[in-house]
């Protein structure tokens, strides 16, 4: 395969990943690395580097749209970014120490987990509980616009959320993904942030988290321009199209199909990791 053909095919694949990621809300990053390593036989480190760059592009692009709608909570985002960026530094340092086969197995496990989390129902809100003193001190409680006017919400279990976010950052730095699934888990399940706020705030945070490990990836030589170029442009184009289509598309069945694809890729990553092929 020559460079022109390779660039074209990787660009098409990345575009599809970005499109599906945006339509299903599962993020394109999780399927990019398996796509590059399993189908294009790219070394795992180059794949992780290219994926991480595309994560920054889609997160920043989407965050620009979300911030204006007033759903994302900048204070929750900034406070938790302390945890995610420190975690991302740790993760990026670990990528050089952990063998690629182990990274592949962890990656597979995260894929399976992302598919699982996308299928489960969301917890009911704790609307009437008294506000958490720590959350109040940190000014994390907020409100967001709904069709029935402004809705106020309280945030709970801040230390648990902070700890989970450190883990999310470490996974992001280790695997070159946004780890949106873990971020949403931390905010939804632990801190009881409303769904709309948690998803948009998570998106807002992903770019900053990824930037924290990107500098280290760059200095290690994991980011190859020839590979990152089609991946970044493809994912960006795909996710922009996806966000436009989102309003008019029935995504329930699509989510199911995409979850199945993620499970299969996850199993394949684990298999290849155990077999020592990655």
């Amino acid at each position, binding site marked *: 395969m020559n460079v022109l053909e390779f660039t074209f095919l990787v660009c098409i694949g990345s575009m599809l990943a970005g499109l599906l990621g945006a339509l299903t809300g599962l993020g394109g990053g999780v399927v990019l690395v398996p796509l590059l390593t399993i189908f294009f036989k790219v070394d795992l480190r180059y794949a992780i580097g290219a994926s991480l760059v595309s994560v*920054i592009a889609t997160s*920043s692009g989407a*965050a620009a749209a979300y911030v204006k709608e007033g759903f994302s909570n900048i204070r929750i985002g900034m406070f938790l970014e*302390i945890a995610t960026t420190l975690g991302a530094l740790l993760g990026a340092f670990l990528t050089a120490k952990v063998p690629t086969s182990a990274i592949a197995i962890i990656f597979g496990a995260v894929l399976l987990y992302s598919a699982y989390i996308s299928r489960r129902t969301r917890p009911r809100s704790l609307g009437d509980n008294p506000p958490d003193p720590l959350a109040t001190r940190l*000014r994390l409680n907020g409100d967001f616009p709904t069709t029935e006017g402004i809705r106020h919400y309280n945030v709970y279990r801040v230390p648990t959320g902070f700890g989970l976010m450190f883990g999310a950052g470490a996974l992001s730095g280790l695997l070159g993904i946004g780890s949106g699934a873990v971020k949403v888990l931390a905010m939804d399940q632990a801190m009881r942030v409303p769904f709309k706020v948690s998803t948009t705030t998570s998106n807002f945070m992903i770019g900053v988290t990824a930037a*924290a490990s990107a500098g*280290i990836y760059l200095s*290690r030589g994991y980011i*190859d321009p020839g590979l*990152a170029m089609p991946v970044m442009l493809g994912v960006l184009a795909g996710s922009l199209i996806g966000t436009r289509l989102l309003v008019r598309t029935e995504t329930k069945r699509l989510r199911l199909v995409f979850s199945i694809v993620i499970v299969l890729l996850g199993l394949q990553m684990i298999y290849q990791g155990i077999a020592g092929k990655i």
Partner: protein
Amino acid sequence: MKNSQEWTDQRFEELIANLLRTGVGLSATVVLIGAIIYLARHGFSPANYRVFHGEPDELKSTHGIVRYAFQRHGRGLIQLGLLLLIATPVARVTFSVFGFARERDWMYVGFTLIVLVVLLYSLFGSFLIA
């Protein structure tokens, strides 16, 4: 009082949105220009990413990338575009420091500065030990 704070919050968020959009747009444009040069020159060379050998020095450090890009190397320009992309969230965080300072929210000025230090360390500090 409450209203004026909400106004600055909203205005602040709009500025951040524009900053992010501009950063991504600028970066994608530079990457695209680099891609055209790169593909025109090397389109028919074989593509091989099976084996990891890391990038050469001129594509690994900030000043190396800038110098290489200004010599109009396709790969250098792509890498410069990617560097702009990585710098976009850093700019967003820097901007937030001023945003919180204007609201006299010193606790959040502190939090944001911590995040900024971590980001700058990753972008510049890691070259010292790598």
